[in-house]
């Protein structure tokens, strides 16, 4: 063993390339320093999603750099190719096709909204590619070509709604759902309604409203929420599934009409730290969100991750804040590591082999949980956090799960 590694070191030094003496280069010396493997990013850096998705490109690069610094995967260094689908859903499919056909990427990391994932789905299925999807979503999908790194509703939304309905929460009895008009909010709300029905809550206890994507004039809706909350019949909460710039616009109007979290709490399912940038959060303190990671998560893994991101932002002059970390960033970071571990385990970059290697993988996620995958499906089991808005434009951890619940792809509630 000792002589082996010394020999390979001498060999590498001889050709003038400082190949690190990492494990893969020992196992498969034939691969040593013979080129790169490409990964592709499908995150918009222009359009309505730019502020949120844009930062994920940099996180993928950061994770790749980290793996490269340890010797790459299967003896190859990772090269990250970035595209800009411009928040235009059909363009995601086009970019994905280009990445797979021309750039020959080994895996794709991308999409934020469910509608963009749905457009990419047939492309990756046809080419038998691999897409890592870092957002929590509505479930009801299980493709062998997509790795669902974040949680379906049973392990994110339902625990949060349960918490609010319980004694520790606010004993919520009535629900006002507001969503952007597309597949994710509609499916989530459908499942929520089925869930409430299964709990014996009458249909009169909820109200459902949708707004167009990018909607900003929330005056009438907030008045409706006030009227709904004042009708009596138990504590009312808002389940907010609007996305993008509608989130801060809604919160601003909500606070402006004098509503507080203690009057009507808002559970923002797509609300992340980045949505609070630019808002005065003092009148918003107490509103909630639920994710598989919060920036205030405790543990050394998170401290290390936050430092890495801050350093990366500084070193590479990234146009995003170094002191803001959101769940999809961590999920994208986990994705790259999961892929690298699977590829190393399979000893190959071929999608069928990598896919087979997913079973039994575990990774120490910055959230503090050990996340894992099984042979059953391409879902990743993650922890659950409920966050509460604080004065400093962030979220405090209000509640977190003991372990990582097993993800259930298809809702049993109809």
């Amino acid at each position, binding site marked *: 063993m000792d002589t082996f590694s010394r020999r390979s070191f001498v060999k590498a030094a001889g050709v003038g390339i400082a190949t690190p003496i990492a494990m893969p280069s020992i196992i498969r010396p034939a691969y040593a320093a013979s080129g790169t493997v490409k990964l592709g990013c499908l995150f918009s850096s222009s359009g309505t999603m730019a502020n949120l998705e844009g930062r994920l490109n940099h996180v993928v690069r950061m994770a790749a750099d980290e793996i490269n610094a340890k010797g790459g995967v299967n003896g190859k260094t990772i090269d990250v190719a970035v595209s800009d689908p411009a928040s235009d859903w059909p363009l995601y499919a086009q970019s994905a096709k280009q990445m797979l056909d021309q750039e020959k990427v080994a895996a794709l990391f991308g999409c934020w909204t469910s509608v963009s994932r749905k457009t990419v789905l047939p492309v990756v299925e046809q080419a038998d590619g691999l897409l890592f999807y870092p957002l929590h979503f509505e479930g009801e999908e299980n493709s062998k070509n997509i790795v669902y790194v974040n949680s379906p509703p049973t392990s994110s939304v339902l625990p949060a709604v349960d918490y609010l309905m319980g004694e520790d929460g606010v004993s919520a009895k009535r629900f006002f759902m507001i969503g952007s008009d597309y597949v994710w909010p509609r499916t989530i709300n459908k499942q929520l309604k089925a869930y409430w029905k299964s709990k014996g809550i009458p249909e009169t206890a909820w109200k459902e409203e949708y*707004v167009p994507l990018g909607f900003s004039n929330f005056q009438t809706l907030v008045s409706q929420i006030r009227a709904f909350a004042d009708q009596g019949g138990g504590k009312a909460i808002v389940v907010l599934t609007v996305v993008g710039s509608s989130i801060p616009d809604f919160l601003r109007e909500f606070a402006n009409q004098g509503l507080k979290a203690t009057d009507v709490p808002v559970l923002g399912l797509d609300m992340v730290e980045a949505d609070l940038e630019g*808002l005065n959060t003092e009148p918003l303190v107490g509103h909630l969100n639920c994710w598989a990671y919060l920036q205030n998560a405790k543990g050394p893994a998170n401290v290390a991750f936050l430092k890495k991101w801050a350093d990366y932002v500084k070193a590479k002059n990234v146009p995003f804040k170094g002191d803001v970390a959101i769940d999809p960033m961590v999920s994208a970071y986990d994705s790259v590591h999961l892929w690298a571990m699977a590829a190393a385990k399979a000893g190959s970059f071929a999608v069928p082999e990598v896919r087979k290697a997913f079973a039994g993988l575990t990774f120490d996620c910055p959230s503090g949980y050990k996340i894992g995958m099984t042979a059953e499906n391409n879902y990743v089991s993650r922890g659950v956090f409920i966050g509460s808005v604080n004065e400093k434009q962030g979220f405090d951890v209000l509640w977190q799960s003991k372990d990582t619940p097993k993800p259930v792809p298809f809702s049993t509630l109809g």
Partner: protein
Amino acid sequence: MVASAVAARTGLRRFCLALCLALIVTPSIAAPADRPGVIANLCGDGAAFADAGRALTALAADGSAEDRTWAAPIARAVLDRKLTCDANGAVVVLQGAFLDAASRAPREPADGAHAPFLSLKNRATFETAEAALALGTATDVGRRAAALHVLEHRASALPDTFFDAAAARETDPALKQQMLVVAQIGALRSTDPAKRITALGRIAETPNRRARAEVQPLVSDLAYAKDPQFKQAVDAALAKISRGISIGDVLATLYSGLSFASILFMAAIGLAVIFGLMGVINLAQGELIMIGAYATWLVQQGLRTYAPGLLDYYLIIAIPVAFLVTASIGILLEVVLLRHLYKRPLMSLLATWAVSLFLSNLVRVVFGTQNLQFVTPYYVTGGVPVIGDFFFTWNRMFAIAFAAVTLALTWAIVRLTPLGLNIRAVTQNRTMAGCIGIPVRRVDMLAFGLGSGLAGLAGLALAPIYSVNPQMGQNFIIDSFMVVVLGGVGTIGGTVVAALGIGQINVLIEPWYGAVAAKVIVLLMIIAFLQVRPEGLFAVKGRRK
């Protein structure tokens, strides 16, 4: 006794009950508060913490004046997370000084001191305690009024006599009156029918859905069937409240419509000038709005650095800046680009589209993609309840007033100044205007500058309402074209009427069919209208190309 069983659970509970009993029997004598006990509970587990919150509320209701003054800063500090617990009790930060929470002697918190965490439920308890204490101790009338506003919703968490006692202490007559009204909710449950009837009358004076939720259950009250006088009072109160709610709803709809119309108008007026005068479809108009908002932000940042005292007035100070910055960009655009494309409308459309992409990406590179943070000055913060559930918000009022002033100024420029005369002449007949010596090119340039400057002002007016980011302009371009085309190209009056119409119709449809359908229906209505009247509502009389 039930009371003794409950009291056995914690010493604190017993103490609270003792207080309550003392209040009922001899309201004038209050036991001194168990200060270390309250503090120990504050630093205890979740249940004890909630007990501490209720103890503070109880102090507000019947503690001595001294105890209330002691308790008020504690409730505030818990909410602001300025109270930290350590092994020796708790430390509060008051006016920058560290003081022991119980004794108020100066002391630094020990290492590892932590602020108790507020769950949503406990936050409500402490908000109630804080407001109840502030109502009795705050020296500022506004602060007491705000506290009363918080407590209105939570009258059930307080003893029935709380508001009467507070009203007796109150020195401000208007606030005293409001307190008496809130006190009536307790009186509704009284056993004295006369008291209940007076209470009904008082409650009906502030009609809203909360009042209705209080009064409605009385219909199934025993007295309702037996006592005709009571029945009459309940029915009258319900009728009055329902009327108030209806009026409030109508006003709220009109106000929402008006404020949406003011935003549409601000976004469209600049376009109306440009489109009307030159027939140029300026797709960069949305980006000029965005740049106006960014100029406002820069003014705010400048004031923060050089004149922090004036920071609250940045929205006023930024008016000339936002106008001049966007006007100069407009003039530059006209001179460099559009002047050469007047005879080719399709080319100018494409060119302005390219400019819009260029501007939004330029801003993205320079400032980043995140939303900008604006200070909310006091004059655009919050609002006041008027009648029923109509809530009058100041930031919308600011937009409405701003739109009204802009309308007046634009009208004055177009109608009363020599430039306006020239603009109208060129709009009516460009060739003829040129023949009689009007400098057509110069008028074009200045009018383009005026239109762009108006877009900048729109950006300023939108800053306190919407998120400001590089994409914000795209949201407005379609709406503003809709207004301009519907209003009739190039007329200010048409733009006003069209903005009011679209705004109001949108708001009217929204509660019935939802925001998505509202948008579709409005677009269909416009299409149908333009079939009948392609020139829009008000067409400029005169010969057009």
